[in-house]
Every structure is written in structure tokens, then in C-alpha cells.
């Protein structure tokens, strides 16, 4: 049975959006005593601080008025004999792995743009983190999109070839009182990535790192190009997505949690890249919000997918961070051993956009004994295979 669900807070907004959408906007502001630039659309308000690495100091889910970044703090310590020491606690920032990073190095704003369809800000630092890497950073928000896009370019300004490992250090929270769980798509049968040991898993799966997992620091080999967080209090998923190519061969997911507290990071350590002098490399990140999902099993295009294998049914929730036209999705089950694909049925999806969740169930077909992956294909050709759940038939 098909159901279209709209989160309560979004109902009015969505109805009104039938006739009018909300323009993107850019505003200059300040936070914790330092200038900031605020980007907003109908779903998100992102506050970025030039003095703090051009980091994302605030990310507010407007329909639910939920701030998803840890509280931003900025201060400058002054001494007679040493240069001023700015420091910051900033939720979303790019660092360089293997270095002692600054949290408050200033970025120069090289441009801003704002029109009804898109708003954005561009930063640059010629010697990011005191290195010979020039970092250009662009943050953009599009109209009617529940995703903040961060693009970066690193350029080797040294005279010699050099290797850099960028590290997205995202410390967000969906609930200030109870620790979020972080959903990590992990690659199985991996002991080491490069020279670093990682948490071993027997097979590819979604690993849920929550307060019950007592390891404070976890490195894993990525099986997908995203990592996400959930919290039962919010019915909201915040995902961090990048390009899979940039995670291979030696990229990592990294999480750190505050034992006894709520802080729980979700971080991407990109695969190291060697660049010749003057050469550059582009990266792209998205902070994606999927409203209305209670869990996330996969991101396919801009569609967030949740799936539970119920008793005799497959129960799906799907929503999108960007507007997706109505189309159908066909679900199949793939036998792990033989690779045989067995159809489970199709479902006509409504228009998907943030706040509109399409929930549907399909009956499980009769299956021979074995373990099955759940797979799907959209009309637009996009396909997905879930790491979890799996269907086991005895």
C-alpha cells in the first residue's frame, strides 16, 4: 500500500509551495563575535565563518527549527610574545590528515553570489593549515534543496610533488541531549587501509556506531560514498556524501565519540592524493538532510532509502534531498551465492522532495533458501543494492 507522508512541520510549507517556493538568500551576520555569512533556502540555513576555516558553524533545519551543528565558539587569545591565537569550535570543516590542525585559520572571501535559484560563498587560503596547499572552498545552497554543497580545490603550490590527505571533520548533532547513532557503510574483509588498521568486519554491511559501542575511535573502510547519522528524537537523517572515487583506494570513515557525552563525529578521510607542483584536485561534499526517514540504508542519486525486512514484506521509506519527478522503482532480491535476481515488485513513487516521504511495502516473493541482497532500479536508470538488511531464507 502506498502512503505519502509529509512531516507535520512541512505540511503548510509544502502546500504553499505548490504555488510559491522560497528564494535562496545570502546575508552577512556574525556569530560568537566574528563575521559570518548565512545562506538559506526553504529548508536549510547554513552559517559559515571565514575566520574559522570557512567552516560550517551552523546548519539549521528550518522546518523543524533544529540546529544540527555543535554550538559554535570563537575566541582570540592575545599574548605579548606570540601572534594572536584564534581558536574555534566549528561543526563542519575540512582539515588535513596527519597534521596538527588549526581550527581557526582565516579564509579570504573571494566572492559571494545570491539569486533566487542559488546562493553561495567562495573562500581561499593560499597556505591552508600552514602548508603549501592552496585551498579554495565554495559553499552553495540551491533553491528547494535540502543539501548544502561544499566544493573544494586543493592546489600544490610547492616546488616539489606532494601528497595531501583531506579530512572532513564533521561534528554534528540531531539531539543536544542524547547521542546520535552514526550509520557507517563499511567494507568487509579489510584489516588495513594503507598502513592504518581498520575495524574488521566479515562482510560489507552498515555498521551502527551508537552509545552502546564502547570503542571511542573507529576507523573503517568505506563501502559507500556516504556516512550518516540518525536520532529517534528527530525523524531526520543527516548524511555526508562525497564521490566514491575520492575514497578509493585509501579513504576512511572515522568516528569519535565522547564517552558519557553526546558528541559523536562522522568524518571522511579522503584517499591521499599526490599532486605535481601547480596541479590541483577537486572535491565535492554534500550535507544532505532526509526528513521523514527513521533510518537510512542507502542513498541513490538524491533519494534517501530506508528499508526494513518485515515478516513477509519489505517495508520502504523513500524521500529526496532534491526534487525528483514521479517515477517507479522496481525491487529485486539477489541471491548472494548464485547471483540470481528475483523480482519483488514495482512501486510508483510520487514526486519526491524534502519532507515528502513515500512509504510502501512489497510482499516478499517466494524464495529458495539462501541469503539475498535487496536491490532496486528507478525508471531513470539509477540502481541500488542495499548493504542491509538482507533477506535470509532457511
Amino acid at each position, binding site marked *: 500500500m502506498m502512503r505519502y507522508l509529509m512531516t507535520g512541520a512541512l505540511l503548510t510549507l509544502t502546500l504553499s509551495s505548490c504555488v510559491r517556493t522560497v528564494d535562496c538568500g545570502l546575508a552577512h551576520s556574525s556569530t560568537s563575535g566574528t563575521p559570518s555569512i548565512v545562506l538559506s533556502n526553504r529548508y536549510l540555513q547554513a552559517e559559515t565563518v571565514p575566520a574559522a576555516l570557512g567552516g560550517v558553524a551552523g546548519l539549521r533545519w528550518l522546518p523543524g527549527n533544529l540546529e544540527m551543528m555543535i554550538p559554535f565558539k570563537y575566541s582570540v587569545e592575545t599574548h605579548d610574545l*606570540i601572534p594572536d591565537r584564534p581558536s574555534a569550535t566549528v561543526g563542519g570543516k575540512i582539515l588535513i590528515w596527519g597534521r596538527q590542525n588549526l581550527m581557526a585559520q582565516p579564509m579570504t572571501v573571494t566572492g559571494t553570489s545570491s539569486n533566487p535559484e542559488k546562493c553561495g560563498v567562495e573562500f581561499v587560503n593560499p597556505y591552508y593549515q600552514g602548508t603549501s596547499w592552496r585551498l579554495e572552498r565554495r559553499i552553495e545552497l540551491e533553491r528547494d534543496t535540502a543539501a548544502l554543497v561544499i566544493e573544494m580545490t586543493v592546489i600544490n603550490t610547492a616546488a616539489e610533488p606532494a601528497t595531501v590527505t583531506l579530512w572532513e571533520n564533521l561534528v554534528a548533532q540531531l539531539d543536544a541531549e542524547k547521542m546520535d547513532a552514526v550509520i557507517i557503510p563499511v567494507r568487509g574483509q579489510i584489516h588495513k587501509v594503507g598502513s*592504518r588498521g581498520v575495524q574488521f568486519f566479515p562482510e560489507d554491511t552498515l555498521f551502527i556506531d551508537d552509545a552502546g559501542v*564502547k570503542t571511542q575511535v*573507529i576507523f573503517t573502510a568505506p563501502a559507500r560514498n556516504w556516512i550518516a547519522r540518525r536520532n529517534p528524537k528527530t525523524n531526520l537523517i543527516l548524511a555526508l556524501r562525497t564521490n566514491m572515487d575520492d575514497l578509493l583506494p585509501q579513504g576512511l570513515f572515522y568516528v569519535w565519540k565522547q564517552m558519557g557525552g553526546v558528541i559523536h563525529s562522522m568524518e571522511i578521510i579522503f584517499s591521499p592524493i599526490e599532486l605535481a607542483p601547480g596541479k590541483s584536485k577537486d572535491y565535492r561534499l554534500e550535507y544532505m538532510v532526509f526528513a521523514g526517514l527513521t533510518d537510512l540504508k542507502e542513498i541513490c542519486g538524491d533519494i534517501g532509502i530506508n528499508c526494513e525486512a518485515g515478516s513477509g514484506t519489505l517495508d520502504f521509506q523513500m524521500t529526496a534531498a532534491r526534487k525528483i519527478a514521479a517515477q517507479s522503482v522496481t525491487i529485486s532480491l539477489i541471491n548472494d551465492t548464485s547471483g540470481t535476481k528475483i523480482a519483488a515488485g514495482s512501486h510508483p513513487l510520487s514526486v519526491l522532495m524534502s519532507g515528502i516521504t513515500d512509504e510502501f511495502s512489497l510482499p516478499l516473493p517466494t524464495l529458495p533458501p539462501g541469503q539475498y541482497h535487496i536491490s532496486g532500479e528507478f525508471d531513470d536508470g539509477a540502481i541500488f543494492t542495499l548493504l542491509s538488511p538482507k533477506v535470509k531464507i532457511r
Partner: protein
Amino acid sequence: MLKKLLIAVLCAANAFAFALETSRIRLVHDGKGGVKLENLQPETDWRHASIQWRMTIGPDGAPAVVSMTPESGDAGELRLTGRTGKVLWRITLRPKGTMIEAVSELTNLTGRELWIEPEINATALPAAFGCFWDGFAGLREIKQQSIVRKGIKGEQERHVGASNMPFPVAAAAAAKGGVFLGGVPFDPFSYAAAGYDPKEQKLSYSIRLVAAPGETIGFRMTAGAAITAYGLQENIIQQYYESYPECWEVVQGQDNPYVWGNHAHYLNWWSQPCAERSRRLGITIEWSYCPYKRSGDMLIRDELWDYQQKNPFRDRVIRFGGIQTSFTDSKNNNIDEFRKLRQDRFRELGRKYGWMFYNTTAGTWCEIQLAQEKYPDSITHDKSVMYILNSWSTAHDQEIRVFPMGTSFAKVFEEDMTILAKELDLPGFALDCAYGGAFYRGPAVEKQLPGRAWDEEGKFIDQSVAINHQIDFIRGINQKPDRKLTTFINGYLKGDYVMAEASYLDTGKYNRWMPLLRWYIGPRPGCVHGHGYLFNQVAPDWRNQKPEYFQELMPKLSDYIIFSQLRYGLTTSYLTMYGTPQQVYVIPEILELMRAGWQVEIPMITEPGMRIPFSARYGRGVDSYFFLGNSGNQPVNGMIGFDNTALNEQGWTILFNRKMRDFAQIDNLLESNFTRINTELPSRVPVIYEAAAAIKKPTATLSCRVKTTRTLHSVRHELAWTGNDAFSSPLLLRQLRGFKLREVRVDGKSVAMSGGQTVPVRIADGTRVEIEYASETFHVPAEVITAFPFTDNGGKVSFKVMVPAGAAQEKTLAERFQTYFTFCRDRKIIVADSPEPVIEEVSAFNPAAGTVSLMIGGGTLPGTGNVPDGVSVSTHGGLVVKAATTAEADAMLTALFNVMDQRYEYVFPFSWVMGLHREVLVHFGMFNKAFPYQRYFEAKQ
């Protein structure tokens, strides 16, 4: 310090009263059950408080007052006994320094385990009390609501995975003074609470204990009066330093060969140690990191060597003083070879370079499978702090937190340390993460171990109790005083040498850690351990800068490090010394002050408007030092005053002089209880004042000019009194390390001395007092040594070392001269084709010119009976080094070489080090170069 002790037993009717008194406080028992504290300090805003003892039987009981009955006590003690239906509480009260100490014995009278919370509180405090101190760094304003700090967990330290811990006190104060109650630092307790109830005007301090049926538990509490003139917290902690000096004592005291110097910071562990480099940089101790394969198996057992790693996360390499091995290939992964290499290297270099054996993170982390298989009872299941370690310590496998006291792991851990200490001839152990804040609740908590406490989750013992226990254990492994093992800790617990694991330039960490960490370190020696200059963080845009930027910035950073060392009484390392010889220049002063012992309270007043961002105080009484640091651009001048009543309890007035290496003079104005001096603080020059002597001052204001002349072999103070009426006073004299007090003259006449002071002498206008010290080591001035023909005009070695024929120890020591000049040759201080000094075995004493005669044991050669121990020059111009023991001769040579460095000076140039990378130095054209330095502790520059 106890000023006066009074025990009065006044029989009146059926009541009798006791009083115990220190210089600051009196505790009175009125004979009817009431105990009062009386504040004896003149300038204060409270006079009396009532003391109560209360007991809570947990977990659900309410606090109940325990009526205490006085018993006859020994002299100087008051014994009280209280009894409830369940416990017998005996308290012995006695003066302890400036405080009153309450030593309790609590006996469980029941047949079941009791969870108890004994409490001391002070009631009837003045309503004017406006601030409360709960033991952490800050003060809290007293408002209408009660304030309570429960437990000992503080802010978590992310890297360590544990938390800081409050100083064990509760205090409340008004503008001028306050009252404090507390425990004794490092005593075994796992839970303490501090509170203030403004409605009852009550200050309280309690601890939680678990008592088995019939068990008697001992614990200590304190009470005292504080003044706020130089900081409430500072005054209270200063009283602890003075009342409980044993808490901060170092094994082997001032003769400990490892703790009174700089930390090698892996220079002597990762790379081949260099004796001369170490000596010139003042290095005496090293952090010998993880010299084993599996965390938890320090001994390296056959059956534990080969195993399947659970979660290896990094290839592991160990460098035993530059000799590298690893566990990742079959060639190196050989247990016998590993054991042999480790033993050989430790036996050869361990004591020489102070290699402190890293003992599996103070016995608190164990490789996870090892712990789960062998020591499951030992796992510390505290999930509120880091539980599984995934990135260090060995970098070889995952580790899990274990508890090193009373568990199966503790037994093995202690056995291993005992065996290793002997087999490797260890100088001591390095205890990382010596923190509390991780609670053990495993099976061993059922044993009658020290420090058991309880909370809503049940019984537990804090990790700090176990680590302190292990430090006591280590100190007991070797019994001979000169062989007692040293403990090098990273943290705030017991130990002999303390590491603060952050560069001085990591200001964020210092803001977070200090002053609490510093309070705990107390007068103990220590160091910092971080990434030196953190240049990329301090100057992230350095690539945009020209050489002038570096030329301006680096000396400032270096001065900041010098000032920080003096502020905190902690040393730095080669990471910041290379290229900035100013830091090498100040080593003698920094180490001398560290030996004197950092003090928390700085009883100094300054003229209004004087800006002195850096200051510190070391030592006490006539051994006091003050450091003042003007980090601003302009000189700061003005009158400052040192409060003698805070510097000593005996009423001495101290005369100060600027601490210089050759000559200084300063006018002292002795006014009221202050010694006032007119100070001049140049920009970025550390100014140190040190005590010269002390007198018992009459009421009148006095004036005295102190002149000090210091050479290598003598120290001479001249006290010139002007414009004062005659008075009589003994002179209190310093005991200078390495010097003996030779004579005190008043107006040219020698005066008698006894017990470190003279007989009373008459001092009048124009009186001149001379105090003379002679070096115990050097019998000649430095100029004689530096002029000695070690090398000829061509820069080649031109002397011989003569040792008695067949004297192996002398010969070995003589080789130090060869090492010295090899270093000089390699560093181009002398010419490249210089020969080594020849060591010649002789059967007759012939200290001819151009020879160094080295003798141990006195009179080993005919004709040397009258040669004094020490460094002297014969009538023929030969240098003679004579010592009673090998150790003394070794120390003498070190001192001699330090003098020779004035002639054979080597400036360590900038080199790639952690925190200052080669690319920075190349960018600014400073690789292998150095900055000049200023001889600012010498009047004659």
C-alpha cells in the same frame, strides 16, 4: 609550620577543654562535645566556626551528626571517639604544619558491608562568605542555593581518556580570608564531595568508603584558615605544600640523578644517545616508550609472543637508542633477539641516560585479547570514559582499560616490574596517563582494597588510587636509598618527575589544564612534552613571510618559552633549544629554581601600574626565589615588596638580591613585614631575585644594600646597613648546593655559627656583614680552567689525562675527555685533524702543566694525600680532579665540562625537529643557523 602547640586540660566541674594550635588556627574542644575552630590570623573576616562530624550510611541514609567524646591524648593530640549503632569512629586531631589534621579510623561494627560517607563540616560561618572553592580551578560565587561538587571526575582529557580531578578541598571565603576543609592529596579515595550551604552557613567535605564487616579503614581530613591576600586557592594549596611536604617529595631527593634536568623527548631513545649533546642540553631523563610487543606483557613471555592480532592499526617500530626493530617481519619478530637487544641496550644506556621504562600506560591499558583471556577480572568497565584504545599505546593492537591493583593483572604487572627492574637494571619507570576518572567495578572491588567508594551504580575504585599504589610499589622495589627507582609520570598523581604533555605554545591546553595541573605537580620537578614551537599553528601564514618575520618572531617565541618555563617551573627540550641558544644559556638558572621547588603562592606586591605578566616563586624562607617576567616592549620599573610573613613562619626578614652569575647589588628596604626593592624589569629579560640571608627585624624600618659577588669557586654576600638604629639579630644563612659556608664576618670580625645561623650580632648604621661560601667542587676560578691548555693555538688537543695505573674506573671516566673533544671536533669547535686526548696510566702523581690528573678514592697515588677532593690546579699548572667515589668524580667531570663549554662553546643550530619543519627553516634561510643570545645573567657581558 607549627608555631606553637598548646594542650590545655582545664578541669572545671565535669568538663575539660583541649586546644590544638598552629600558627594560623586553633582547634578547641569545650569538653561538652563542641569543637570550634578559631582563626588566629590578624587580618581576617571570620573568627570562629563550629566543627561537626557527620556520617551517612549509604546508599539511602541521610547524614547524621556523630557526637564525639574526647579522650585523653598524647602530647600534641586530641582524640575523639564517636559511635553510631553501626560504626565506631576514632579521630586523632593534631597540628600538621599550619593546619589541623584529623586522622580517622572507622570501624564497621556490623556483620554486613557498609557504604559510608564520613563528613567534616564547619558551621556558623559568617554570612559575608561570598565565594566557594570546590577544588577545581575556578571559584564559585555563593548565592542563595547550596553548592555541591560530588565525586572526583572532572573535565575529560580526550587523548588520555580520563579526567582531571579536583584538589581535595572545600573552601569558603570572604574578602580577606576563609576556612577550608579537605583531605590529603594522593591519599587513596575514589569519591569526595565538597559543598557549601548558605542557609546553614555550612562548609562540608566528605569522602565515601566501603567497609567490610569488622573492617577498620583509616583516612585523613584537614581543617585550616586561609587568607586571600595572594589568592585564596593559592594560599590553601601553599599550606598543603608546607604542611604535607612528603606528598611532593622525590625519591633520592636532591641527589636523584634523573629528575633535576631536562627531558630528552625521545632524542636518546629514537636515536643513538650522545653523551655530550645530552650534557650540553641538560638532559637527564628519557621517556622510553613501549619497549615490548604487547601492551600488558612487559616481560615478554614465550607463550604470548606469537598471536593473531585482533585489530592491528599501524606497523610498529621500536628504536632502542637508535637500534631499530619491529614486529612486522619474520627477521625482526624473534623473541630471543628482541629480549637480548632490549636487555643489552637498557643495561648499557638505561642508567646513563635515565631511560624510564614505559610500563604499559601505568598498567591501565592491556592488549584486548590478552586482557580478555588472562585477566578478565581486571577490565575496567567504565564506559563514561575511553574503554577501548584504538590508536595507541603500542600502535600494535587494540587495547582495553585494566585496573592495576588487587587484580590478576596487577599481580603480573607488579611481578613484571620487579623482574624487569633487576634484569634490565632500570633507573625507573615511565607512567603515562597518570590520571583518575575511570572507575573500576570488577570483582576485585569485593576485596578490602584501599580507596573503595560507592555511588548509585555500586562499589568502585578510581584508577588514580591504583596508579598511586603502583608508584608506591615501584618506589619499594629497590630498597637501597641510592638505588630507589624513579617514577616519571604524565599526569597529576604521585611521582618524581612530572610531564605536562603539551608544548608551551599550545596555549589552549594550558588554559584548560592550568592552574589545577600545576597545583598537583607542586614543588616537584617536571617538563613539558609537546611539539616544540608548533610553528605551523603559531604562524600558519609563514609562507607569505620574509626572513625578517622569522627574525622577529622566533626570539619572541623563544622568550615566551623561557618565561613559561620559569612561570611553571617545568623545563623544555631540544625541540625548542636548537637555534635559540638563549634557552641553553638559561638552563642553569631554570634547573636551580626547579630544584628549589615551585611554590603556588606568590606573596609579592607591586606598585600600581606595574605590568608583570609572568611571575613565579620558588623555595621557601631563606631559600626563596622570585621570578618576574616583563614580556612587554617597554621596561617596567617600580617598587615591589616580598611578604616575609608568607615566606616563613619563624619571623625572619629576608634580604634579597638579583640573581646574577657574577655580580649584583640591590638596596633592600625592610619595612613592616615586607622586603621592598626597586626593580627594573627590562623587556623580555627574566629577572630573578633570590634570598641572600635573613634577620630578625626590629619594628623599625631598615635599609640594607646587598652586594653579591659570585665566581665558580666562591660566593660572597656583603650586607651594608645604612641609616638604622642599632639592633641585635642572628643572621640566617643559606645552604647553597655545592658550596660550604666558610665564614661570616661583621665589620671584619668572624662570628660564630650554629645550625645555619650566626649568634646574635649587633647591627648598626654602617655595619658591614660579609658572608662567604666556598665551592665544594672547584678550588680555582673559571678563568684558570678556561685558560688551561686543553688545546694549543692551532686548535688541536694538547693535553693528557693521567690516571693511576690499573685504575679501571678512572680510565673509563677519563674517556669522557675524549668524548668531549670528539664532540668538539665533530662540531668544528676545534680543528678537524685534532687528536684525541691521550690517556696515560701513571704510577706517580705528577700534575705537570698540560696534564689532567684524575683520581678516585683519595690518595691512590703517592703524594696526593693533601690534594683536596674537587677540581684544583697544581703548583706546576696541572689540572687535578679528585673525588671520593666514582659517582662524585663523574659529577665533577660534568661540572668541569660545563665550565670548559665557556671556551669550547657550541651553539646548537636550527635543525628539523617536531614543530619546526625543515621547509620552514629553508624558507627563512635559517637551516643550520642560530640566533645570537644575550648573557643577561651576567653583569660583565
